[in-house]
């Protein structure tokens, strides 16, 4: 790497510390081991800008796990922002790792984190700037192995032609096995094909090249033909069983610039027991696995000591559901108060709201409060199995207002299955009641002015949820319902409306449920100039429209089509462990407005016969 040239370029770009590395706790290793053998070089790439990627807990865990290995040196890579990509191209600077500033094509393995569908083009930016061919079949013996992990792997098909290997499930559970196999393969002097075969035998690893997709006359996905007899029929998701024993982030790298989650995140549990029917995370991270309060506190101590952060966030899908939350929160608050460390509790659910703890949090620092009723009427909340009532919400906001809060955010979704105009208007009704709750309180008891933000995103059907078969509503219909809501919210005191742009939600739906043909669409969209698509202001619609058209496909056929229950799904070979029949049953119950209990209150049988093998919720109850 020409560092003079790089320095010259860095002077011209926005936020240059995105590209400099050298942060505190960055791992520094020699490229050879003590025995003189070279270390395997692993480039861990988050396909979005630095401040987003550095905020992702999962890849920070994997960074630690890989660097704990003596035979591996894992370095970080993020996608460049527009200005940097342009500058790199103009100056012939290839993409490089932050730790040693090494060009990416010199690595043995490049591992991408797939957190959301709209970051897929950034994968291509990285490969392109490294001079690595996009398609797996175009890469040869000397190219790095391209792998990916993260929640999007539950439907890996849209990136199947690009990736050599996909890792399904908890990364810390499988990365060591993957590296051991890689090391063995290298020792044996195996070819790329032999390596892929070896990897495909590891549970949780998927090698797309060993499966060929079939489509029917109408162009619907029909099934797979296996091209390698040894490849498994089903790829079973890997699950960390004991979170106390599992690896965590270790010595956290401390960024110079502000990142999105610029604090110590304490993961108190993984999974969620609620079973909200739209929520993919609620299904693909099952079962709930908790960390003991002692482990959480030890990790908090270590993380604070090695970073100097002054903020901790209790992190999970639904922190209020942590069975030791009432024990943990006062302990952390007392323990760190003298060090002026503030504690935030995001992802709190309305019904698990902790009035006493709330007062304590306020003692340290007041952070924003967020509630997610998701739907405006009880009928629709029952359909989506959001076990929250209007009374729950109003009681919670009342408590918050009494405790001095005057800013709350309310999250809703537009376009949920069975939604009618009445449901949309119900959102405005709920906001009106929140406003009334605030202003009916005596002035001396409440804060100055209410700042209630009603946020409405667009529903995206996702694989492995009971709504995976449901269509997304059309863009016109999204816009109509947004307008309806905006109008209904007008004039409600203290209430603002924020809604998500729907084009990206539509594309997200297509890629969430899409099949392998989307790999070519993706490559074509990239060539047409699509970049950083999750940044709405940079969304390039023509690039995508042309890409779909050139492949003879439409966004609608993936996003807006109702899939028949008996139709083969493009992700049928992925086994998330939650049973297909369970999702079918949940879908039926949704249609009839029937709710399903929280599985802490009794098993609903989502794992079928495999419950005993994976689920320890019952043991945790005791």
């Amino acid at each position, binding site marked *: 790497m020409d560092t003079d040239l790089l320095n010259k370029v860095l002077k011209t770009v926005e936020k240059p510390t995105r590209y400099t590395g050298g942060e505190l706790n960055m791992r520094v290793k020699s490229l050879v081991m003590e025995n003189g053998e070279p270390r395997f070089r692993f480039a861990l790439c988050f396909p979005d800008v630095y401040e987003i990627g550095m905020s992702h807990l999962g890849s920070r865990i994997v960074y630690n796990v890989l660097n704990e290995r003596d035979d591996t040196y894992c370095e970080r890579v993020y996608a460049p922002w527009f200005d940097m990509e342009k500058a790199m191209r103009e100056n012939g600077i290839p993409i490089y790792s932050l730790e040693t500033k090494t060009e990416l094509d010199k690595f043995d393995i490049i591992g991408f984190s797939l957190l959301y569908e709209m970051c897929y083009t950034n994968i291509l930016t990285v490969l392109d700037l490294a001079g690595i061919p996009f398609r797996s079949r175009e890469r040869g013996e000397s190219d790095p192995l391209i792998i990916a992990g993260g929640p999007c792997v539950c439907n890996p098909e849209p990136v199947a032609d690009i990736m050599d290997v996909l890792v399904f499930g908890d990364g810390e559970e499988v990365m060591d096995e993957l590296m051991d196999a890689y090391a063995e393969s290298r020792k044996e002097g195996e070819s790329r094909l032999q390596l892929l075969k070896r990897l495909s035998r590891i549970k949780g690893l998927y090698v797309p090249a060993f499966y060929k997709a079939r489509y029917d006359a109408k162009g619907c996905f029909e099934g797979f033909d296996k091209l390698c007899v040894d490849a498994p029929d089903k790829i079973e998701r890997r699950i960390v069983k004991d979170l106390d024993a599992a690896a965590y982030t270790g010595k956290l790298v401390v960024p110079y*610039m502000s990142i999105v989650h610029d604090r110590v995140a304490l993961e108190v549990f993984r999974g969620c027991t609620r079973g909200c029917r739209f929520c993919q995370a609620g299904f693909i991270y099952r079962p709930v696995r908790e960390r003991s309060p002692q482990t959480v506190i030890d990790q908090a101590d270590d993380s604070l000591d090695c970073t*100097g952060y002054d903020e901790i966030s209790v992190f999970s899908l639904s922190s209020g559901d942590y069975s030791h939350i009432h024990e943990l929160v006062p302990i952390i608050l007392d323990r760190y108060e003298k060090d002026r460390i503030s504690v935030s509790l995001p992802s709190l659910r309305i019904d698990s709201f902790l009035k006493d703890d709330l007062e304590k949090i306020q003692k340290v620092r007041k952070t924003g409060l967020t509630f997610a009723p998701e739907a405006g009427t009880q009928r629709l909340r029952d359909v989506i199995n959001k076990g929250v009532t209007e009374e729950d919400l109003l009681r919670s906001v009342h408590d918050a207002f009494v405790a001095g809060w005057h800013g709350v955010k309310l999250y809703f979704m537009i376009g949920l299955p069975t939604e009618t105009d009445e449901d949309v208007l119900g959102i405005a009704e709920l906001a009106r009641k929140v406003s009334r709750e605030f202003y009916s309180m005596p002035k001396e008891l409440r804060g100055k002015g209410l700042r209630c933000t009603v946020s409405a995103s667009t529903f995206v059907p996702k694989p492995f949820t009971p709504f995976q078969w449901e269509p997304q509503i059309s863009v016109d219909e999204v816009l109509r319902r947004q307008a309806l809501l905006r109008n209904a919210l007008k004039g409600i005191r203290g209430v603002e409306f924020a809604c998500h742009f729907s084009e990206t939600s539509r594309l997200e739906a297509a890629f969430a449920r899409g099949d392998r043909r989307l790999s070519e669409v993706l490559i074509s969209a990239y060539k047409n100039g699509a970049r950083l698509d999750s940044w709405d202001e940079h969304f390039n619609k023509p690039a995508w429209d042309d890409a779909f058209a050139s492949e003879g496909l439409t966004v609608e056929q993936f996003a807006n089509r109702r899939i028949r229950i008996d139709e083969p799904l493009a992700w049928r070979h992925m086994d998330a462990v939650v049973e297909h029949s369970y999702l079918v049953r949940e879908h039926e119950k949704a249609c009839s407005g029937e709710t399903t209990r929280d599985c802490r209150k009794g098993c609903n049988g989502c794992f079928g016969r495999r419950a005993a093998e994976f689920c320890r919720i019952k043991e945790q109850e005791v």
Partner: protein
Amino acid sequence: MRLAVVFVKGPQVRFVSHLDVQRLFQRAFRRAKLPLAYSQGFNPHPLISFATALSVGMTSRSEYLDVTLTERMEPEAFIKAVSPCLPEGVEIKEAFDMGESRKSLTSAMRTASYRAYVNFETEQSRESIESAAAKLMAGEIVVQKKTKGGIKPVDIRPMALELRLDELEGNRAVFFIKGVLSAEGGLNPDVLLNELFARNGIAADNETERLEIEMDRSALLN
């Protein structure tokens, strides 16, 4: 007590902005478990202030900050505690007790000197560069300065105390620059150099290092 700290900002952290340098020290002091004093008010923050900011991209051999502690600490002990907690490229050179002084470091700044490493696109002769520099320093140097109220012409000549060519070899040169640096503002050495190059149609880029900030220590400590 209040301690003044002189630190190095090396090439590894040249692109870290002033705001991020402030956070970097807050975190380093927390890791070192210093007895930090905090401000009063709704959002208390540790009492750390910087003499001046350094432009993003510049390195420096002596930057100043002061930190207030709730307990006495010897400067040597302070350096020993903090040094292992700093990232690569940041180093504490010196710390001294500010005693009863209530003055800010900013108020004691007088001048600063810089060294600029220049790359010319084409080879230059010593004579032509030296005469161009002498000519530049002989009269007003009006540059367009961005302010809140828009772009305004400003004469930076009164703030430019010295501009000297130290080394020249092929198309590489080293300049020494000295300028005013005070609470009211100061000379930006890169602006002076750009003006020199622009007036003479020379294409060049440069990297600048701040060598020293001259502090009136008697004014500071009395």
